[in-house]
């Protein structure tokens, strides 16, 4: 939209990754621009500013950073500073005030050792050391009734200790505070009065729901990373102000939504698993261009592979983990496994081939990088199999050494198994694909969904080389590879709504529900959401609030989370709520107890408040001719898993392919940041967004444009 001066306004999505910081720039009426710079882990905002400067210079005509920044309307920013601070235990020095007698729960993690047979497997360091975990007198019972009054003198003494020890962040979490926050509020008031500079997290503010360890762990993590995120945002906002940025800055959250920096400062833990969170929403946009409302989004990078399920919107879960520490905040159900281009292949003691989770990362990297790596990686296998062009990796910026790959595979895989290098490489490829297919199973079959019913949106530089075999393994007939697949998260950031999650424990029988009390709780959460969205400049017309219940059958221990049908609360329609619960339970676990008439208990009530933002809309182009001949670069020998042999296959320049063009497998399509392998049993058509639609031969019916052709 032109502003008063008649200029086009920019929007920028910025995704800070481990190796690269990705930029996706849009301007109304023009083609989007993609840019990547090397990340600067010491201070990630340095890379952010460098990238913006580069983008300014890339404009026609070139701009100064200040000119450019002045025209940016919105920056959506995904940051992993909290993630990295936790993984490396570089968070703020933190103190915990908790219930007397229970101060070790944080470190005990309920007494789990994840590796049962490995006596060398040690516990993880807690984010608050024991001497800074202070138990104070004061006790509420399971219904929130006071048993012992809070001892404020002990709270004060704790604060004195924290001051003396230079603690920067404080967490408060008392048992049963989900039922009554009074003790926590009183302790918090005292902390604020006595030590206003400390970053404070109160469990009943952040997460007023039952299960002590989960609430405690989440609260402590929030404090641990709070000052880190504050410091980072100070730096970033300072630098942006310096260059005259006056637009809106939004921060990516683990739940796939965005939030203002002010709200992020309060709930820093909400960014802990936000790294891949923008991908699934973006995937859906490309799927929608194919008239699909659901999809599986997979993203394969250098060290990890992420899979997520999207049904109308990304599927949410109510908790997750970082470095074996629990986070009980709603987040996208993204499953991550250690499989990427850098995953190392090896033969175990029993003679079985394994690939990953160990990774050669970027240093020393795969053997073919020639940077000293001697172990065979997935990238090495891909090179031997012909999926990568040694002359055209990363658009020709990195030359690959095929002989180094062959040597590594020969020594570590082929010779020990007594097979050829090609067969060994094919084996690594197959095992890697099988591992990734398992990752897709985690988010589909394990949650009661059939993967064959969903198209797969493929992202990440290495994703589209493997997706055909992954899809064959799972019987999935349709893949979508967006043009922007290598920076899908940065794209997704410009498509994300503002999103805030709330939860209250509200234990009640569904058939004896006090709707007045329940609606009061729901309205309170909605009110909070509306207020936050208002502060983020979202008018009521663009606000939406969804209600979810966590329910269980009588005497069950775990809950099932599901969306309450619209109007069920207003209409006091317990029957509609019950049938939504039965069907979700049945879908997840293969049965329901509907026929037995077992009682249903509500445990938690949740509200998700969404502020709709104006989405990036991808430009559609007109379809051209079917022929792709103009884009053909040449031929090379490529390994086909279907026939287990090498076949001379055409290679196309992806940048030359246009909507409507069709390619029959086997073929390679090369782009500057990715390579796409269309295997023998597949075909590819370019859709009007420019995405590569790869489908099982004979299944034209799945592809929108081809379906239309068929109608004519």
């Amino acid at each position, binding site marked *: 939209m032109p502003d008063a001066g008649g200029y086009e306004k920019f929007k920028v999505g910025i995704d800070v990754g481990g190796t690269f910081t990705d930029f996706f720039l849009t301007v109304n009426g023009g083609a989007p621009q993609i840019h990547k710079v090397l990340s600067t882990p010491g201070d990630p905002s340095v890379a952010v500013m460098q990238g913006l400067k580069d983008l300014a210079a890339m404009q026609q005509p070139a701009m100064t950073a200040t000119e450019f920044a002045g025209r940016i309307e919105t920056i959506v920013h995904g940051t992993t500073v909290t993630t990295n601070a936790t993984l490396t235990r570089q968070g703020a020095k933190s103190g915990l005030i908790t219930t007397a007698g229970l101060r070790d729960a944080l470190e005990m993690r309920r*007494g789990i050792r994840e590796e049962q*047979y490995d006596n060398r497997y040690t516990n993880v360091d807690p984010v608050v050391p024991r001497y800074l975990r202070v138990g104070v007198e004061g006790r509420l019972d399971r219904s929130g009734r006071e048993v012992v009054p809070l001892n404020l003198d002990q709270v004060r003494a704790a604060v004195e200790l924290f001051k003396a020890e230079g603690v920067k962040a404080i967490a408060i979490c008392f*048992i049963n505070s989900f039922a009554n926050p009074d003790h926590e509020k009183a302790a918090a008031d005292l902390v604020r009065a006595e030590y206003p500079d400390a970053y404070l997290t109160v469990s009943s503010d952040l997460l007023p729901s039952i299960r002590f*360890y989960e609430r405690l762990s989440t609260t402590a993590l929030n404090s641990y990373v709070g000052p880190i995120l504050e410091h980072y945002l100070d730096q970033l906002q300072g630098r942006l102000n310096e260059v005259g940025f006056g637009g809106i800055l939004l921060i990516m959250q683990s739940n796939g939504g965005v939030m203002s920096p002010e709200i992020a400062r309060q709930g820093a833990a909400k960014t802990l698993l936000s790294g891949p969170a923008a991908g699934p929403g973006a995937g859906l946009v490309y799927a929608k261009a194919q008239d699909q409302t659901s999809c599986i989004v997979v993203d394969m990078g250098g060290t990890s592979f992420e899979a997520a399920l999207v049904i109308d919107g990304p599927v949410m879960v109510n908790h997750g983990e970082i470095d074996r520490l629990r986070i009980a905040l709603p987040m996208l159900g993204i499953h991550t496994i250690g499989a990427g281009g850098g995953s190392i292949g090896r033969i175990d003691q029993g003679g079985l081939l394994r690939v990953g989770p160990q990774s050669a990362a970027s240093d020393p990297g795969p053997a073919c990088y020639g940077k000293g790596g001697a172990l065979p990686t997935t990238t090495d296998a891909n090179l031997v199999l012909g999926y990568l062009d040694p002359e055209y990796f990363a658009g020709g910026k990195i030359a690959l050494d095929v002989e180094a790959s062959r040597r590594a595979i020969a020594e570590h895989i082929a010779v020990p198994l007594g*097979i050829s290098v090609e067969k060994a490489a094919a084996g690594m490829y197959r095992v890697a694909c099988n591992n990734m297919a398992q990752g897709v199973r985690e988010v589909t079959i394990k949650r009661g969904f059939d993967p064959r019913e969903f198209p797969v949106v493929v992202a990440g530089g290495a994703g589209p080389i493997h997706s055909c075999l992954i899809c064959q393994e799972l019987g999935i007939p349709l893949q979508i590879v967006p043009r922007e697949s290598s920076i899908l998260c940065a794209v997704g950031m410009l498509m994300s709504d503002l999103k805030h999650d709330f939860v209250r424990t509200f234990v009640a029988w569904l058939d004896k529900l006090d709707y007045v009390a329940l609606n009061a709780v729901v309205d309170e959460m909605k009110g909070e959401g509306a207020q936050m969205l208002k502060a983020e400049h979202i008018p009521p017309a663009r606000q939406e609030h969804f209600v979810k219940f966590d329910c269980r059958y009588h005497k069950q221990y775990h809950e099932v989370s599901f969306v309450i049908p619209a109007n069920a609360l207003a209409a006091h329609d317990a029957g509609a709520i019950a049938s939504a619960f039965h069907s979700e339970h049945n879908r997840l676990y293969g049965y329901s107890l509907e026929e037995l008439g077992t009682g249903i208990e509500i445990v938690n009530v949740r509200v998700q408040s969404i502020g709709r933002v104006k989405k990036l809309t991808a430009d559609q182009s007109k379809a051209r001719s079917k022929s792709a001949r103009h884009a053909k670069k040449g031929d090379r020998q490529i390994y086909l898993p279907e026939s287990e042999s090498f076949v001379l296959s055409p290679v196309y320049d992806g940048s030359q392919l246009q909507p409507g063009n069709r390619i029959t497998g086997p073929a390679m399509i090369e782009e500057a940041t990715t390579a796409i392998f269309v295997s023998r049993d597949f075909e590819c058509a370019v859709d009007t967004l420019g995405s590569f639609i790869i489908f099982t031969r004979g299944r034209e019916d799945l592809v929108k444009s081809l379906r239309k052709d068929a109608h004519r």
Partner: protein
Amino acid sequence: MTAVDPILASVYARLFKSITDEMSLSVEKTARSPILCEAKDFVTGLYDADGKMLEQTENLPILAFSLAPVCKYIKDYFGNDIHPGDVIFHNDVFSLGNQNNDVAVYKPVFSGETLVGWVAVKGHQADIGGNVRGGYNPNAKEVWQEALRIPPVKVYECGKIRKDVWELIFANIRLDIVEHDMRAQMGACNVGERRLLGIIEKYGLESYNAHKQYLFDASRKMIEAEIAQIPDGTYAGEGMVYFDGHHEGSKFTIRVEITVAGNSITFDYSKTDRQTDGFVNGTFTSSASATILTLLQMVNPGIPHNEGMVEPIKITIPEGTILNASYPKATTFGNHLCPPNADAIIRALAPVIPDRVTAGWNNLLCSLTTGLDAEKNEPYVDIGFMGLKGGSGAMNGTDGYDHIGMIDASGGVLDQDYEMFEQMTPHLLEKHEYITDSGGAGCWRGGLGVETRFTIGSEDTQLVTFGDGDFEPAFGLFGGHDSILNIIELTYPDGTKIVPKNKDLITGVPKGTRYRQIAGGGGGYGDPKKRDREILRREVRNGMISAKVACEVYGLEG
């Protein structure tokens, strides 16, 4: 014979593991008893047509190696009378069951008319009939005072429920959640069945058969390579069991002779003491399971667990010993003979593989409270998982794990969440914290134990204790020190103090009684004076080790 493709074999290995994991998730999320869904006291398994183990998910290792022998037993028992749609229950300890409460569901998997495998789930049920609610009866002398015996019995035949049999079983069990939990176990078997059939449909039966044998061979090679690293010879060790539930001061010795010859290993328990006339007796499967899991902690933890892995391990336990009671002896305590059995094995092998063994682990001492939650007017049963989990023994190069629990669970059994504990029982939790100095001192210290205190919230409460570790603490190795003893004690509202015996049944415990439990730590390894000083100072600061012990035992200056 189909040619074996080593690559496809890796794929099969991954698929089998994913099946048992999925089955496990299904039970965890749908069961009702906290013993299953919080403490995960269950295992899931996948077996071939002959009952050979393809893969297991072993939340509680002591149960894990008791599924396959029963699978073979059931197959022989029914002979040709096994059909698609059959579902078989089993718990009987005199037909290879490990513990009465651990009830298994077995389901044969048919591809068309051909039996291609079995899926099974075994879980610890909240009640199994017998004299005492919850199943632990320290006064029992015979199996009938302990439990309902379930020899192999079909509850579904050709897909049709045998309503009469079903009702007979559940008419003899107190809590209705057991019926629901058995349904959850059956549901998980359905999940496993669907997945196995999907794989066979995709790759073909011949390929499945050829590759499973390849996987057995791979695991066998791995374990053989590990055994070969243990010097040949015969090594003896002992572990002690204190109190049989009946005779004050009674104690029993588990004696093992381990013979290593090349790549095979034999555990011979012939010199072990005779069985008791109480419930402190093992069954062959519970004892053999204990032997296997202890050995597995001394070898590469990455070996896939299947039939091939257990093949080179030979175990001899004569009937009539405390580790293999004869009919109709009481045996509910049998799983908990794992800690002294492990002690015997560790002591035997420590001199020859000093870098692979740990010092002694804290032995289990457990309590189970039952009563009426008056506020809800509902009965409750609680196994005090959070209270029983002590520390593990240290090993060369690694400290023991704090608050991990007995060796037969190895960190697989979780504490009740504190708030869920107070929702599910009328008790009020007062303390659950590490105990300073409870880890046996050493260059590598033992894992810390915990102290648990709560106020009992029901009138006329019944408390059962079972366990050990209150006479002999976890032992140190190579100059490392022992840990501290387990304790359970009750203080009634009138001030009366009661210290239950380690196998005891106390009734009529009044509301307001204070419960206190100490779970000791693990043993230390090596000379405490050699412990890293920086770590030591940090531990003093954190109160894991007191300043006094740091100075006097560890020799920390300043």
